[in-house]
């Protein structure tokens, strides 16, 4: 309940993983170009999307995020040759795992975003936040928050 007495609107928390070279620069670009996107995201920067162990994603959910967005360079553009191929492989397995677990698949998304695609970054974030808002809080949120 808020001070005003109304029911508190659900504000989703989204963890976004960005690689240093493309998607983080994309996020930067969105900021520099003053594009608006919802403030619900927490960006975690890693050197390459290949560094994102699926465990990071699981841990995010276990610690209470409502959605996770994994981003990296476009296929072929990874600065470490094949990092994003690994990401793709892992994502495939991870999303199957999430499906089997019974978590809505809209809570987890993978997008390739280049350094110049500030607009794409802003749009993807908007979409994810909207979708997760519709779904409501994640059923995996910790017992005590």
């Amino acid at each position, binding site marked *: 309940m808020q001070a005003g007495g109304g029911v508190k609107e659900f504000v989703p928390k989204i963890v976004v993983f960005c690689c240093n070279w493309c998607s983080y620069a994309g996020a930067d670009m969105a900021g520099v170009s003053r594009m608006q996107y919802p403030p619900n995201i927490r960006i975690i920067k890693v050197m390459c999307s290949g560094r994102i*162990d*699926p*465990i990071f994603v*699981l*841990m995010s959910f*276990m*610690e209470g995020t409502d959605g996770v967005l994994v981003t990296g360079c476009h296929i072929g553009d990874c600065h470490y*040759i*094949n990092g994003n*191929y*690994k990401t793709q*492989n*892992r994502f*495939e*397995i*991870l999303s*199957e*795992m999430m*499906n*089997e*677990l*019974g*978590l*809505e698949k809209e809570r987890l998304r993978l997008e390739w975003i280049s350094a110049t695609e500030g607009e794409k970054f802003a749009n993807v974030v908007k979409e994810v936040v909207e979708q997760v808002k519709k779904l409501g809080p994640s*059923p*995996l*949120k*910790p*017992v*005590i928050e």
Partner: protein
Amino acid sequence: MNIGTGKCYLAWATDEKTREKGSSGGFVSAALAAALDKGVVERVLVLKKHDVFKGIPTVTSDPKEVLDCAGALHMTAINLAKYVDSDVRIALPAKPCDARGVIERAKRNQVNLDNVYMIGLNCAGTMHPVKARKMVKEVYNLDPNAVLSEEISKGKLILKTSEGEKSIKIDELERQGYGRRDACKYCDINVPKMTDLACGNWGVPRGRKATFVEVLTEKGREIFKNAVDAGYVECEPASDKSIEIREKIDQAMKKLAHEWHEKLFEPINKLSDSERLEYYINAFAGCTGCGACKKVCPVCPCGDDAKCTMTEFQSEVHRIRMFNMIRLLHLMDSCIGCGRCEDVCPAGIPLTMIHMRFTERVQKKLDYVPGIDMKKPPFFETELKEVQK
């Protein structure tokens, strides 16, 4: 006789004692002993009988010890894959799940397959030793400690004590909630085609003490030929009828396994997505974090310091322990459904069934069955060459 790969034979131990002791002609023990004796391999990994409910994985270089271990132990549940040390040439009798475990370990560079000789055993299932003891007491009305030996023949489990023998149909035991482990009931890989020699009694004509042997690889041929040349084993080609019967039994067992699969998975299968999440949260709520499931898992290559055990902090607030989540994740592509985790879980979580639900999705989607061959790498591995066109 000329032994060829891809061909089927009936074979038996020449030594009468081994023939009697072995569950079907003693071929496997004789061939293993011969391989040691003539230096085809340097070690043999066998299950040494402690009592009918307990076998101890033993690595030996003594052919006599191998022969002493002749005979199956149906009421033990061990996966030998974890005990294969392939620094030297080693042979082992391998049930399908042992062999699949070895192959999955080889994919993870834990085992050098060139050094491993697998003599495959047809398998229709094993029993959980603790449940089996209970079964002996309640269904057979016998003292478990008095059971001297056991045998499965024509669908019956025969127990021998000093006072005689008693046999009950396995179907009947399973109706009463005993019998094989659940993982075995729905396992549909009964003939170990991924090994070097596939052996068993399916297809052996009635009344004959012999083993049906299919030679699958060059290594298998080497072991077989060595055993014949060394005088440990005699053989004759299997008749077309034998081959046909074996195939039929295999198909029937597969069908039965699929029926069990449907029956045992029904409680999860019928749930909706959100109900399933609840089911998993509740199922894992009992986990004590003992780590036993990881310790026994033949495809988990980690030692004691693994990610799953290191992220245990704060687990009391998590809906599902990170430990369980990570195990689910890491086995997505590789669980072979051996049932060991379920066997040892003190909380009684149906772990194998749960792992299979996760694994089967990926297996279907990517048309991949773990532990069958070395052709496909685990999914988490991306090969560099595929990217550098």
